[in-house]
């Protein structure tokens, strides 16, 4: 079974030049290069993390985002001060896209005390509320009601912002997602539900897991929806700008399905040889790699030179190595740390109001 072509792919139209969309046309060369740099940094970070995983420095799961970088970078590049992000377990790209530093991200994978969650969350559970990034959630679709809740809080406080709630194509079959769709539409919550459709929910293709189309399900909830390619960061930005603006200006939710592809397995524990072909992966890599496509565009625009592209790549590799070295040198949390960060009250004893035992043996 191979990846189901989306409507977008099956009906190629005269290529719209998304670079001309206002949200892209106004980008300075430096801003374009920064988008490119973020995508490269995500990829090199993850490649480095894969090597660490193979060297048994990282436990548990490692769900790599390689191939999907234009989605997180495109979406998060549009964030204003009151925009928020929440996603599932394939969260490294979003974390870097919102501006988290790679050293604590890598250290989290290593299970070190210097990790962004002090080694308590791991790969699937990155968080940075200071950058409006609310995780990093492990259960498919479970984060989507929370995303609607972030939007609820924005609306309640009268703030002009939007929440982006990311999920994979497998999540659209979860009940919690549909409950969140209904509430968001019923209550006019400023949330954009973003389906990153990489074609496979773990090892099950879209054709084998989902009846009908994905984004269109939003219509059943009286929500606007859109579809776009996630291989072109300009196209992601053009589409998302439209729906983020709708959310911020009118409070209306929407669903956007972004077609993308992951080169690696569902997680690195996935043998990745039972449900798709090597040729399919190679084809995507060769023809639709988001970093290569954007590099070509920037070179053609003159914003980027081959030398600068090379330099950005070298710097990204070095940054990933520095993050790995930092992680290697960092201490693990101690057994005493197991019971901190469980209760707010236990962590703030001076402000504790309750009495009695919080922990048991």
């Amino acid at each position, binding site marked *: 079974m191979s990846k189901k072509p989306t409507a977008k792919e099956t009906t190629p139209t005269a290529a719209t030049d998304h670079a001309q969309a206002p949200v892209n046309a106004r980008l300075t060369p430096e801003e374009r290069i920064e988008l490119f740099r973020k995508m490269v940094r995500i990829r090199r970070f993850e490649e480095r993390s894969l090597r660490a995983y193979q060297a048994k420095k990282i436990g548990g799961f490692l769900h790599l985002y390689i191939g999907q970088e234009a989605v997180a970078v495109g979406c998060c590049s549009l964030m204003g001060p009151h925009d*928020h992000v*929440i996603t599932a377990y394939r969260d490294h790209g979003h974390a870097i896209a919102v501006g988290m530093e790679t050293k604590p991200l890598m250290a989290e994978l290593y299970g070190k005390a210097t*990790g*962004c*969650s*002090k*080694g*308590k*969350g791991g790969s699937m*559970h990155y*968080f*940075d*509320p*200071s950058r409006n990034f*609310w*995780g*990093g*959630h*492990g*259960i498919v679709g*479970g*984060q*989507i*009601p*929370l*995303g*609607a*809740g*972030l*939007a*609820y*809080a*924005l609306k*309640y*406080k009268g703030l002009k912002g939007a929440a982006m709630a990311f999920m994979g194509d497998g999540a659209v079959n979860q*009940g*919690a997602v549909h*409950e*969140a769709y*209904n*509430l968001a539409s*019923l209550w006019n919550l400023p949330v954009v539900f973003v389906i990153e459709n990489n074609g496979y929910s773990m090892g099950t293709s879209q054709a084998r897991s989902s009846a009908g189309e994905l984004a269109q399900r939003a219509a059943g909830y009286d929500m606007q929806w859109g579809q776009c390619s996630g291989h072109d960061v300009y196209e992601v930005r053009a589409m998302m700008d439209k729906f983020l603006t709708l959310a911020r200006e009118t409070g209306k939710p929407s669903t956007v399905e972004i077609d993308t592809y992951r080169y690696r397995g569902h997680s690195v524990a996935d043998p990745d040889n039972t449900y798709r072909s090597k040729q399919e992966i190679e084809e995507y890599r060769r023809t639709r790699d988001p970093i290569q496509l954007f590099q070509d565009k920037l070179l053609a625009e003159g914003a980027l030179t081959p030398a600068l592209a090379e330099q950005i790549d070298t710097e990204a590799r070095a940054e990933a190595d520095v993050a790995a070295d930092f992680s290697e040198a960092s201490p693990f949390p101690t057994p005493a740390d197991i019971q*901190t*960060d*469980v*209760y*707010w*009250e236990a*962590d*703030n004893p001076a402000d504790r*109001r*309750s*009495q*009695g*035992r*919080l*922990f*048991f043996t």
Partner: protein
Amino acid sequence: MPVITYREAVRHALAEELERDPNVVVMGEEVAQFNGAYKVTEGLLARFGPQRIVDTPISEAGFIGVGIGASMLGIRPVMELMFWSFYSVAFDQILNNAANVRYMSGGQIHCPIVIRGPANGGTNVGATHSHTPENVLANHPGVKVVVPSSPADAKGLLKSAIRDNDPVFFLENTMLYGEKGEVPAGEHVVPLGLADVKRAGTDLTIVTYGRSVLHSLAAAEVLEREHKISTEVLDLRTIRPLDFDSVLKSVAKTHRVLIVEEQKPFASVGSQLAYMIQREAFDELDGPIHRLATVDAPAIYSPPVEVEQLPNPRRVLQAALETLA
């Protein structure tokens, strides 16, 4: 002191906290226009308006998830579950998201949400509507679990719960909503994690909570009158955090312990208590710890038989006499 019902006491706590903190929002099925399935929220919509008192569709996973997400951004939602039994369809939201988000974020996030509603048997509604999940909830570090037995406790503990920065699960009881008691007007706050001696005694300690407190007090009257047995009834009020010092103090006084709970016996709150008492007060005990729980089966519908499945004064009396035998 005013005498009001348990239902009114909960309502007063909600109204006073809504008044005190503009970030408090009451949300749930039928809480606004319908005035509450059990009339707990009666009149709140008229007083506080639809922005603060929010009707939800029948969509527990969705609206509780929305509450959790909103709480991460500083809203203090008080969510009503029409029955705590419906927690099962929101289990992932309650016990993966609310309970774990602080930990998984390394302490960067807290989740000041209250989920409240009745959790009890005894109303002949069958197994699906009669769950008492306090043991299941309290099994999850990161959450707090409260089960008030009296109107005054219901008010004082709910006010504490709403002000708490951790997720608090507040388990009421439809059989108690009409019970009356003295409740201080205005600011009356009972800290979480503080047990209360509802009746002092010297021969036997009954450790209990929720509606079983009332059954235990009724049995204690008979024990005193007909058996000359002086019974101490200790109401835990909060399951987690747990005021175990008060349990130890009472055991040191009476040396005999009966635990009474409206719980299925396997891995119940009482199981945990019995373990802790034998571990920390072994030398104080003059006999084995006894327990009276719900008879171990799904909740039976048949009205007269359900009474016998649950703790009741007669069963408590019998268990007390066995404990002292």
